[in-house]
């Protein structure tokens, strides 16, 4: 069943081949008689070079699943009763248009929240719909402190004027074979286990590729993982103390004089201030805070600083640290003072490929797409923008903790509706899940766009719109590189792409849209103009393009005057230098230098709480079979991990009389959740580690069961709101105090 014999091949560069993730894999779809029969990694795509993942390879079971929603639905009964009836797209669009226009007229467009999770290409179409409608409240609702990448992005923008990623040759068409590339001697992997994730425009296994060629890794992780067991140094810190560790490493590198003196003198600003600040964080003091022995901190710092070239990779644990934006800032300083900036195998500046925007990552991109006037006007109304200057000044998110409170309290103004798109906050990212549930239940009008029913659609939706998988849609991607397009290979039911749905509705809500573009394809082509390319042209050349030499391709662009609008060598910051003392942070009224703060509900800050709940829980550990709250209904995936597990140290289990494989409750002041015990020394005795995103699609969907969400949704134990200075970061997902209790008869 290769191409030919009635089988057609479609090459796609996909945003989320593994349905949901953040990779940019090339995939080949084989279609016969209008049906997908097989999916294969595309060996000609430089991103994955033919590789794939379990989720992408299970695409058939996902697309053609009997539970897939394939027509628009409207609620027929009370919210939560689980009664929905199919309706036509016309009826769905007409109803939504009428309701949304009514709400806008009576209460203002800001009283509708536009809620996304993560994954797929949703960021582009949902922001497009929010701005077209006139609402500033685009938000990852439930994601306390917007604690996923935004804090890191904000820190990078402030320090470098750009974003950075570890260089694993991904910007070069020939990849590892390009003579310009050099393997990193070291990669500092902070707060992530890269292989089971494809985070933020990065293929986790690129680091494994480098390790095979001799790259050494330094891992900062409270857990033991596959990668930490192969690390040269494993800094096994107490959860949430990342900020202290980064400052301690800066202390060693600065005081031992092993930073890149020439680079710092030439390209950095504020070194003396930073030097003075880090004196407060001696390795001995930091050892006391983090639990990492002082000599390990010193030797890891030396390995990192003395490497000829060293990359920096990081994960969500950075964002969830208290004051995630300052923790991220301290880590960027490590990259900067060692001179590992925009060099082969270092950390390189990453911009959306060819300057094309899909999902806006900066305020500048929003202004370019929607105009300064609209952005300024909306900012005045954006929830959280008046309390937090960084929320106002960086990107365009409403502050999620404040947004859900607004639903409940009507402050700063009443919220009337929610547009929830490929996002399941109740089953996934929402901390204080019951609070979110109650607050959202009170809204007048809720639309959910998704592929399957889930706890959120069941509990809340008035209308559900059926979304397409990538095999069923045209879309484009420019998250770093390559610039890519996905072609539509098949149609399933009446499903539509997120772009199609939002484009149609935006046109109904804002007539200007239809004057500018006649179709989604025209919109995509207009955005691709920047690259001098069209959708068809990209399809023709295999679905992707790498940026030519210039501002979008490494290396050493700061030396070549490629980063600033004025063409002067330097960085795209106000001063043109890497700002170790951040004028941007100062402007946001937050400390211009990094500092350390204890996790707010951790055992040090709240010893009385820790007495009652002695174990620190890390939630959100990744499983390569599932993307967040998805995939629990896919047979090929679920059979390999049928139940949600909790890692418990054998000593702790023994003390509590817990056996391997027994069901237990994880419990705290917020509630209790079920997990199956997995005894493992990958955690310390005072910690437990568990996955998020669990609910069971095989259980009853209607209330009160809601697919078992109240039994399995771990983030309902995570308190909130975050209270960082910047408004970003500090969601307490990685430091929640809990206890374990046995269930009667081991839960049988």
């Amino acid at each position, binding site marked *: 069943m*290769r191409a030919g014999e009635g089988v057609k091949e479609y090459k796609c560069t996909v945003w989320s081949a593994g349905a949901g993730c953040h990779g940019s894999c090339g995939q080949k779809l084989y279609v016969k008689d209008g049906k997908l029969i*097989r*999916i*294969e*990694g595309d*060996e000609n795509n430089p991103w994955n070079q*033919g*590789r*794939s*993942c*379990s*989720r992408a*390879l*299970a695409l*058939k079971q996902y697309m053609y699943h009997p539970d897939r929603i394939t027509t628009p639905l409207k609620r027929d009964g009370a919210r939560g009763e689980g009664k929905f009836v199919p309706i036509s797209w016309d009826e769905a669009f007409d109803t939504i248009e009428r309701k949304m226009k009514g709400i806008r007229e009576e209460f203002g467009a800001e009283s509708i929240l536009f809620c996304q999770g993560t994954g797929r290409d949703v960021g582009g179409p949902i922001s497009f719909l929010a701005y077209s409608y006139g609402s500033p409240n685009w938000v990852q609702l439930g994601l306390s402190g917007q604690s996923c990448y935004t804090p890191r992005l904000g820190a990078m923008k402030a320090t470098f004027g750009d974003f950075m990623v570890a260089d694993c040759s991904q910007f070069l068409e020939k990849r590892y074979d390009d003579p310009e590339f050099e393997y990193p001697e070291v990669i500092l992997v902070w707060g992530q286990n890269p*292989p*089971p994730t494809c985070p933020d425009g990065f293929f*986790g*296994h690129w680091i*494994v*590729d480098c*390790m*095979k060629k001799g790259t050494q890794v330094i891992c900062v992780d409270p857990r*033991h*993982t*596959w*990668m930490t*067991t*192969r690390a040269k140094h494993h800094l096994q810190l107490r959860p949430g103390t990342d900020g202290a560790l980064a400052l301690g490493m800066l202390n060693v590198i600065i005081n031992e004089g092993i930073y890149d003196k020439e680079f710092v003198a030439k390209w950095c600003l504020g070194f003396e201030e930073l030097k003075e600040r880090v004196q407060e964080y001696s390795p001995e003091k930091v050892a006391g805070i983090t639990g990492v022995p002082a000599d390990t901190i010193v030797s890891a710092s030396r390995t990192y600083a003395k490497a000829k070239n060293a990359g920096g990779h990081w994960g969500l644990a950075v964002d969830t640290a208290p004051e995630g934006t300052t923790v991220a800032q301290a880590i960027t300083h490590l990259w900067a003072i060692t001179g590992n900036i925009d060099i082969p195998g270092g950390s390189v500046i990453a911009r959306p490929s060819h300057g094309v925007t899909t999902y806006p990552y900066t305020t500048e991109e929003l202004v370019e797409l929607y105009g300064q006037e609209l952005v300024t006007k909306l900012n005045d109304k954006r929830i959280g923008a008046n309390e937090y200057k960084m929320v106002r000044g960086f990107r365009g998110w409403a502050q999620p903790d404040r947004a859900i409170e607004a639903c409940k309290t009507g402050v700063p103004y009443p919220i009337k509706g929610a547009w929830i798109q490929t996002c399941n906050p109740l089953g996934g990212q929402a901390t204080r899940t019951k609070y979110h549930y109650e607050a959202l239940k009170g809204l007048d009008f809720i639309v959910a766009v998704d592929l399957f029913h889930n706890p959120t659609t069941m509990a809340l939706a008035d209308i559900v719109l059926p979304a397409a998988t990538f095999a069923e849609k045209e879309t484009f991607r420019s998250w770093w590189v390559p610039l890519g397009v996905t072609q539509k290979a098949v149609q399933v039911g009446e499903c539509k792409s997120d772009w199609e749905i939002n484009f149609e509705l935006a046109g109904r809500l804002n007539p200007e849209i239809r004057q500018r573009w006649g179709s989604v394809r025209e919109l995509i082509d207009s955005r691709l103009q920047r690259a001098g390319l069209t959708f068809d042209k990209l399809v023709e050349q295999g679905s992707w393009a790498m940026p030519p030499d210039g501002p979008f391709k490494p290396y050493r662009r700061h030396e070549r005057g490629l980063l600033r609008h004025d063409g002067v060598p330097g960085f795209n910051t106000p001063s043109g230098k890497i700002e170790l003392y951040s004028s941007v942070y100062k402007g946001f009224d937050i400390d211009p230098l990094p500092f350390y703060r204890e996790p707010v509900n951790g055992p040090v800050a709240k010893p009385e709480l820790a007495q009652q709940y002695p174990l620190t829980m890390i939630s959100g550990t990744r499983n*390569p*079979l599932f993307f967040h709250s998805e995939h629990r209904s896919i*047979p*090929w*995936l*679920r*059979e*390999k991990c049928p139940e949600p597990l909790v890692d418990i140290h054998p000593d702790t289990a023994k003390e509590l009389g817990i056996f391997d494989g027994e069901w237990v409750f994880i419990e705290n002041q917020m509630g209790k959740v079920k997990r199956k015990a997995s005894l*493992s*020394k*990958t955690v310390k005795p005072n910690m437990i580690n568990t996955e998020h995103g669990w609910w069971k699609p095989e259980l009853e969907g209607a209330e009160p069961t809601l697919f078992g969400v109240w039994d399995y949704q771990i983030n309902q134990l995570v308190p909130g709101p975050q209270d960082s200075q910047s408004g970003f970061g500090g969601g307490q997902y990685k430091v929640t105090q809990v206890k374990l209790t046995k269930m009667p008869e081991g839960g049988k």
Partner: protein
Amino acid sequence: MSRYGLMIDYDFCTGCHTCEVACQQEHDYPAGKCGIKLTKFEYETFEKLCIDYLPFPNDLCDLCKDRVAAGELPSCVKHCQAAVMKYGPVDELVKDLEERHKRVLFVPK
């Protein structure tokens, strides 16, 4: 005719499960049937904790004979995220075992 096998560099197997689903898709095996099964080992030496993964081909593995006949690599070999699997004649694969530690050769039936 020489015998063929799978060489697995299990020092770098990350436990991603891709090989398993690749096999299931290729053969249209239902859940519960798969030509390769991932196993995990967590153990301690006298110095440290270790985690190793190893995919174990079984009697449902036919070395992707249809793919191979069509000039393609076996599905697991092609899709492995860590690129740790190699297909070839056994006498050649044996040489890979000499090159580095923590490698294993399977010759499914």
